[in-house]
């Protein structure tokens, strides 16, 4: 896993950092979670 800037993943609570599980899953296959990799940051930047 990538350490994103100063927000090291170990600062994040276990519910997020240990499993990388989403906060919420909805029907229609949508989920939300914090970014974990540089590739995901790039994907967000391409959407922007």
């Amino acid at each position, binding site marked *: 896993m990538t350490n994103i800037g100063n927000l090291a993943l170990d600062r994040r609570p276990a519910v997020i950092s240990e499993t990388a*599980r989403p906060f*919420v899953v909805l029907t*229609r296959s949508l989920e*939300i979670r914090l970014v974990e990799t540089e590739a995901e940051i*790039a994907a*967000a930047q391409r959407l922007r």
Partner: protein
Amino acid sequence: MFFDQLGARPTAEAAAERRDRDAFDTYCDYLLVIDLDRSDEAPFVAGTNRLLHRSVAETNTGFCSAGEFDRGALLAKPGEVAELGRPCVHSDCRSGAVMQLLWRGIAEYLKIYDIAFMFGCSSLHGTDPDALMLALSYLHYFQLAPRDFRARAADHRRIAVDRIPLTRLDQTAARAMLPPLIKGYLRVGAFVGNGAVIDFGFNTTDVCIIVPTGRITGKYHRYYKPCGTP
């Protein structure tokens, strides 16, 4: 999206890479809404925004909104705060579900990090103050933050937002002009700062949105359970 759909002017690097990025990205957390059905090896990002903590901003790049708004009153408050920025929903996914999910994620994030309030620039499309004056005046008269939460547009960039007298303001027409994102902020109890600034690079006119956390978390936690909870 900012460049192709909203007319923002990319830097040469951004145009070549087809990516919007800036110096603040390194220090931000990102929330991603991912559509699993449309993902393969790479996630299909249906929506995103980024959050920057005060404790991180103060030891690195500062806040992104610093060039546009004086947030002295806000930042004088103790405790953790976060700046919300770069909200974006994929053009195929604008039914509302993605934005709802982003709000739920934001609510959870604010709770996890014990953030007292968040703020950030929010944009109206276009750079003609006259064309936007109805919406700007409405925000000024009806959504202005209490004095102790009131950010103020930087003097050298500030445009007047009260040129339509209150007595002549068509509230219904004004609300209809507001972008969905600003309407969403107002629905969760957001205030706006005093004044607005024009961002020619992004082809927008920006206001400062301020949201006390309790107004969000109370609304969204009623409907929300984290994954894995019974």
